[in-house]
């Protein structure tokens, strides 16, 4: 069931009031049941994957928490189990050729398509959550609790398919549902939900249809430099609106039932440096990588530059690989690793040799522009249909300049409109927050806000959602 479907939105009209009407103790079971039903609405068979993962992780966690000589062994075993789970489903493209070669060595000749295992939706997300739970248990940050806690932590439907990637200790305590009905949170949830569906239907999907045309294999070879830049920017905006819209809807729906999920995006294209970009883009994945991979590696080397740079490249390549076993994803990650290394080198040199540049306006503009251009460039291999297309587009963008436009005029206008919206997003948020605060200062204003302005904004958002309703679209991050 899609987040931007009528059935889902109508279901929320029933599910949310029932949740608040139930006794507090019953709510967690209710939410668990809903989460199971939600996942089963994609395919009941998919339920086996998180169930098997949770059962293994649950028992391992108990043994790890018990300590003793075998703690490390249990931990490594459980980690291998969770990672193996992910690799088995997610990276068939990597291991199946090896397996097929082995089988051929034994006289079998499996066809390339002999193994067709459907990838359970959201497996990359909940596998990482299960791994974070294991590491937290091992580091005594959390204590093993009931199986239902772990299962609900993984299965909680708003974040199940495409994040945000949450931590056990920030989500599970909220499943006590001790909060009273919180009107402010409810309204914030509605705001996020409406914003999400508008971002998806009005911005991400229309941009996507233009971008798909531009990336069509045969046509892309004849694109000009201008076309390719617009396509890179167009895709950068499409994936941002697509993923941010999902995150907004996930956070919004969770807020409707009184659960606060962590933020996943913070105006990433306003980042001031490559490092800042990763504090704004897919923040919960960045946080996971930083805390469970990058810091542990670098603690060992105490910040020595070469290991730091190598670890940055390696970790970012893994971030790319997390998206799937495609060369384009890895190249995207490696490119971001290079940007981060470049920035770290500059940062080191600047502190040592050019302290006066710390507050330089020119350098601050340079890094802002660099980050934006670099981020858009990296989207090319991520989206390209193959290596040839990616290299042809990148060459055209940076070396073999050709001018003129070959796409329909509306494509460029739509990209520019989306750019303009992205540029004013922080301003809009600030205005809305101020207006909200101002409107809350008197009873009359509060009533107007509650019963006139907010309904008008919501209704307008819903009108746009209805108008741009496209049934057969998916969220890009559903495939990761």
């Amino acid at each position, binding site marked *: 069931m899609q987040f931007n479907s009528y059935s889902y939105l109508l279901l929320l009209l029933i599910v949310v009031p029932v949740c608040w009407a139930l006794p507090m103790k019953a709510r967690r079971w209710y939410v668990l049941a809903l989460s199971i039903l939600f996942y089963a609405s994609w395919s009941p068979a998919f339920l086996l994957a998180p169930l098997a993962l949770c059962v293994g992780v649950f028992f391992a966690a108990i043994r790890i928490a018990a300590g003793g000589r075998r703690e490390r062994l249990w931990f490594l075993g459980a980690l291998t189990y969770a990672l193996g789970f992910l690799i088995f489903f997610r990276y068939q493209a*990597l291991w199946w050729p090896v397996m097929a070669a082995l089988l051929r060595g034994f006289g079998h000749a499996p066809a390339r398509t002999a193994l067709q295992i459907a990838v359970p*939706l959201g497996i990359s997300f909940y596998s990482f959550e299960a791994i974070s739970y294991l590491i937290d248990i091992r580091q005594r940050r959390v204590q093993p609790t009931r199986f239902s806690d772990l299962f609900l932590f993984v299965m909680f439907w708003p974040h199940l398919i495409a994040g945000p990637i949450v931590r056990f200790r920030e989500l599970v305590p909220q499943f006590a549902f001790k909060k009273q009905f919180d009107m402010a949170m409810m309204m914030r949830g509605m705001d996020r939900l409406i914003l999400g569906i508008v971002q998806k239907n009005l911005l991400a999907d229309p941009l996507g249809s233009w971008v798909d045309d531009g990336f069509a294999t045969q*046509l892309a070879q004849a694109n000009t430099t201008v076309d390719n830049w617009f396509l890179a920017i167009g895709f950068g905006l499409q994936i941002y609106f697509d993923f941010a819209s999902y995150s907004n809807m996930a956070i919004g729906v969770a807020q409707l039932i009184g659960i606060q999920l962590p933020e996943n995006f913070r105006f990433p294209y306003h980042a001031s440096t490559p490092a800042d970009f990763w504090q704004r883009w897919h923040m919960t994945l960045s946080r996971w990588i930083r805390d469970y991979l990058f810091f542990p590696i670098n603690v060992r080397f105490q910040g020595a530059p070469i290991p730091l740079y190598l670890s940055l490249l390696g970790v970012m390549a893994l971030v790319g690989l997390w998206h799937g*076993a495609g060369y*384009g994803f890895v190249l995207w990650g490696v490119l971001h690793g290079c940007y981060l290394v470049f920035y770290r080198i500059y940062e080191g040199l600047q502190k040592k040799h050019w302290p006066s540049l710390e507050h330089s306006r020119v350098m601050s503009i340079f890094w802002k522009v660099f980050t934006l251009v670099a981020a858009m460039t990296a989207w090319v291999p991520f989206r390209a249909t193959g290596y040839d297309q990616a290299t042809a587009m990148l060459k055209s963008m940076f070396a073999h300049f050709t001018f003129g436009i070959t796409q329909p005029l509306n494509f460029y206008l739509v990209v520019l409109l989306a750019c303009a919206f992205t540029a004013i997003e922080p301003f809009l948020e600030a205005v809305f927050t101020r207006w909200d605060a101002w409107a809350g200062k008197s009873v009359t204003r509060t009533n107007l806000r509650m019963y006139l302005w907010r309904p008008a904004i919501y209704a307008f958002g819903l009108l746009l959602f209805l108008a741009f309703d496209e049934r057969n679209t*998916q969220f890009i991050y559903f495939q990761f």
Partner: protein
Amino acid sequence: MPKPLQAAITLGCTVLVLFLLLIARPFLVASNVLDALFGVPPKWTQVEDVYKNPHTQEVTRGDDPVSSLRVLADFWGARPNDTRILFVGNSQMHVISLARGEARPTGTEKTYVDQIANRLAKDSPQIRTYRLSSSGMSYPEVLWELLYMTGKPELHPDAMVLQLNYQAFWTGGIRESLLGLLNDDAFRHQIEAVIGANEAYSAEFQDALHRYDESKSTRNVTNTANNGIAAAFSASKTPGYAIETAVRRVLDRSGLFRGRSDHKNDFVDFLYRCRLYFLRLKPSTARSVSGARLLVSRASVEDAVKLADEKKIQVFLFNAPVNPLVSLYRTPEDKASYQEFVTKLAKENGGPLYDFEDTITAEHWGNLLNGPDPLHMGRAAHAQMAQEMYTKIPLNRVKGTR
């Protein structure tokens, strides 16, 4: 007041405002306000009562060509010995946009193609004409339709009068309404063969095939292109999809819900007007056609002519009239390159290029919102075009070749 009740009232107010917005069509109202502010000519200058006949025209103008071709197949199929002439072009063939000073319409008006058809019917009764025109027609679409028609004996024409227009070279893609032709297995195989042949327009055909398959609910959730061999599962086979289908079926009972796409059209029209009025970017704004778009359009039109030749269809190529007040070419090189291409095409086709580009003088053209219309002509211009074309193109000498 209890807070849950407040939330419920907010929700109720939202539904009420949404209901009002659905009735009021705010984007249409906004467009009308803009039109009034920017001095758009009265609506009646866009003639609504234009002659319609499903036996001689694709009356849906590109909205539902599949059903139109079905009607034509029945009509032509019942007259196998008649000679068939197909007129192919864009909306210039079916729109009358009255010029300044032309009187308000009092009855049904006829475009130049209809007027030629009338004269042919009188002079050569064995000749049947058909106008296959659609708004914003692209040359890949022309090829697509011709591939379909030449595959069906009852639709196979003897001659084709193909409109060449610089503006049409800007356009690409296969419209949604033409995808229905893929229901025909033989045609689908033809399209798949074209895709396999890796022609410049193959990607457009592939995209059309993909959209068709998608509309048949076979879209997969996973992107297999960048995803190795992981099996995809069909979103259309999930229980959630079935629930959504049921919900939509119930919602579709409401006229307001069914009309939701009107709001999209209103919104797109509103943006279009903003583009036109504020950015001054008109569809006729002079531009260069280059790169992929040019490659695709040229290859499509060349192959349409080649296909016609292979199928023994006589082709008459004519350069469409253009409003002298509007310059479609951004540079003189664009004009030279276009003219060189169409002349070469005509030469390869073994016939002359009937050039009507400068035939209609400025005062006979209509207006497109607040500016001169580059494509659509007034009443007198249609009459003049009919006369010129009928005199210059030997249509009454076309013989059956099937």
